[in-house]
Structures are given as C-alpha cells and as structure tokens.
C-alpha cells in the first residue's frame, strides 16, 4: 500500500495537517508513544516535546509518506532509545492487534464453511505466527539489549563482557525474511484459492494483510536503513576507542 503524500512534510509542517494527509501517521505516533490531540504543534515541536530527535522523527514521518524517500545516515547513537521504542511498540501492535484480527477472520471463514482450503490457511498462518514470534523474541531478547549496551558504552559506561562476542553483522544474517510467507498468503488468496462461499471474508483478510504489510515494510526500512548502519558505526567507534 503506497500512500501518495502530496504534502511535502518539513519540520515546520503542522503535525495535524500531516496526519490528515496521511492517516498512517497515527500508527507512527502510537509506536512512539505520542498521544493525541496534537493541538497546533509542528512536526518538530511534537518531536522535542516527546524527547525524540527531530531529524529522526522527520525521517520517520517521511518514510510513512514515501517508503523510498532517501534516508540520511547522520545519526549519532543518541536516537537509539527512540528507535527501539518504536520497534518494540510496533511488535506489540502486530502481536496484540493485527495478528489476532487476521486470525479472527480466518476462524470466521472456518465457521462459515470449513473446507480444506481454510483449514490449510489456518495452519499456514499459525506457522507464520510462530516464525514471527521467534523473530521478535530474538530481537527483543538479544539484539535490542545489545544495542542499548552499545549506546550506554558510548555514553561512558563499561562494555559488559557478555555482549563482546556479538556484532550487528550477526543480526543482519539472522534478519529472517518474515515477509515471504505474507507474500505467499496474498498470492494464494488473490490467484489460487477458490473459496467461493466466503468472498467478503477473503476481501477482509486481504485488506488486513495489506495493512500489516504497509507497516511491516516501514518497520524493515527503519531496521535496514537506519538501525543497522547506525549500530555498525557505533561498533566501529567503540572498537576505535579501545
């Protein structure tokens, strides 16, 4: 789902105007723990009031408008807590809201007329969920704490022994493609599965999958374009310091 963002957002743009133009920004605000109403505040005011680096916030806003917008890599490491907050909250949004919503529709399909197809879709989705859970657990239990440690080390604390063996290169390798199965599910629903008796449910399911995909794509961009390069440069700086 690509949002045509007619508004060229700058730090002086009114945040409420940006949101009216692109309602997906509501998710960005939520993932960063920013609550409505926005009053007359500008993009940069919203950022500073919530203790988020302005450049980072503007980059996020732009990514929500155009997934392909160019990303400056001028971040220093101080942005780490906000990036991790965003990623953690979006995990929560998928797990608590989107995935149960999708499961609900699939179970509804089964109730409406359980067929081999819907049973297979259910199994397929369960399998996807367990992969995603592993991926999120790995990030939250291994990667994110490591990144926090790096950030604290750069701020002057001692590097803990247990994280010395780890590096972000490993994260890149472990960065499983959780989007593959999602793409497959969409292809199956659009191209192959007959499911005549639950037509509107198929549409509802597809719309939910697109909603998820839209946010997941931004999520991956933030990891690939902002977080991983930033962590690599933090690692290099720590190595240099020693």
């Amino acid at each position, binding site marked *: 789902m690509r949002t045509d963002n007619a508004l060229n957002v700058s730090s002086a743009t009114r945040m409420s105007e940006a949101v009216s133009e692109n309602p997906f920004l509501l998710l960005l605000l939520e993932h960063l723990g920013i609550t409505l109403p926005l009053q007359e505040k500008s993009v940069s005011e919203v950022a500073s009031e919530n203790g988020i680096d302005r450049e980072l916030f503007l980059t996020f806003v732009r990514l929500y408008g155009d997934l*392909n*917008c*160019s990303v400056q*890599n001028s971040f220093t490491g101080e942005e780490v807590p906000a990036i991790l907050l965003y990623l953690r909250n979006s995990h929560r949004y998928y797990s608590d809201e989107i995935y149960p919503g999708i499961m609900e529709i699939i179970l509804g399909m089964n109730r409406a007329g359980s067929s*081999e*197809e819907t*049973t*297979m*879709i259910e*199994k*397929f989705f369960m*399998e996807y969920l367990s992969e995603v859970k592993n991926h999120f657990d790995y990030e939250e239990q291994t990667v994110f704490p490591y990144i926090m440690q790096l950030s604290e080390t750069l701020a002057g604390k001692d590097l803990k022994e247990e994280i010395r063996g780890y590096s972000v*290169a490993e994260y*890149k390798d472990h*960065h499983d*493609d959780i*989007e*593959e*199965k999602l*793409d*497959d*599910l969409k*292809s*199956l629903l659009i*191209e*192959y*599965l*007959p499911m005549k008796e639950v037509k509107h449910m198929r549409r509802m399911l597809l719309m939910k999958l697109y909603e998820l995909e839209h946010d997941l*794509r931004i999520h*991956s*961009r933030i990891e*690939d*374009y902002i977080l*991983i*390069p930033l962590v*690599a*440069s933090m*690692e*290099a700086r720590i190595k240099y310091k020693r």
Partner: protein
Amino acid sequence: MSKVFNIIIAEPSGLLFSGLASVISNSGGRFPVFRADSTEEIQRLLTLRTAEAVILNPGLVQGNPRILQTIKAAFPGTRLIALLYAFYDESLLSLFDDRITINDPPERIMAALKEGSGPGGKADAESVSAGLSDREIDVLRLLASGKATKEIAEALHISTNTVITHRKNLSAKTGIRSVSGLAIYAVVKKYITPRGTGI
C-alpha cells in the same frame, strides 16, 4: 520481499548521487544505499558491512587503478561498477565488473547491479506464467509432502542442484516461495491430496 542488498555509491556529484540512489530505491527491492567520498571510505564501509555492489566514478581511481584490484581481492563478493559520464581509458574500465552510463534506463542499471548472485537474478528473469513442466510437478509433489531437497534428488534420480533449479522455477512460475505455500498450491491444483501434505 527479497533479501537486503547493500549498495555503496562513490560519486562526487551530489546531484548524480541522489538521482542514482532514487532510481535504485524506486526499483522496489530492499537496497540500502551508502555514500562514500573516497576509496578509503569504500574500504571502511565494506569492512563494516557486506555490500553486493559498489558504483564508482572511475575519476576517483584514475590516479591509482591498483586500488580496484586490492578491493576486489579483499571483497570478492562485491561487484564493482563504473559510473560513466566522461571518457576513460579502456584499460581502466576493464578493471570493473560492469559499467553504467548516466543515460542508461533504470532497468539497465538494476541489471548491472544484480548480475550474478543478487536477489531477483536469473531465476526471476526466466519467470513465466505458463504451466509447470512434468518434472516440476514431480518436485512439487515431493516438496509438498515434506521431503527435503536431498530426498527429492534421490527419489527422482537427479542432482540436488537440479532440484534447487526446479524449486526456483516453481517459485518463479507460481509466485509462491515458501514450502508450505507451495503445498497449499499443490492441493488447490489437485497435484496432491491434503492428507499427503507435510503441513
């Protein structure tokens, strides 16, 4: 979505850099672009993260073409691509793996980046929507029943590489990449009964 494919661009002109970066990011894949302003910076970036391709203005290495060989030797998996908008000697250009010009259409630029091992390489290029061959159906049935590549190779008396090629073609033709997705496809198309699947 495809795998992440890192690209480093070393081009002094900010305008050309931004233009090229936008062509790359509009191609739809996941191609993080990093900018370098010197060969030292390229080497530094390459040691930090693997990059599948480096696009380089040959002007940066004209005075020291041997640096290209050094980079190639240290990072053999990285393609070196010359970005041309001025004339350079063929002896210098022959040190690159490929070349693009500023007049090239986006498809040509993306092809230069992906040639060889990159994502969406050859298997995708051959992608056709036509039906599956008998051999592909054999592979699909075994795959859907939960067999591993090696077991499929043994059962069909073919090499594991051939199995992998069939598997790639199956994904290219159906648009489905995961084994469990292919298993559902096999049931829908009645190549296999649901009870026969490994899922």
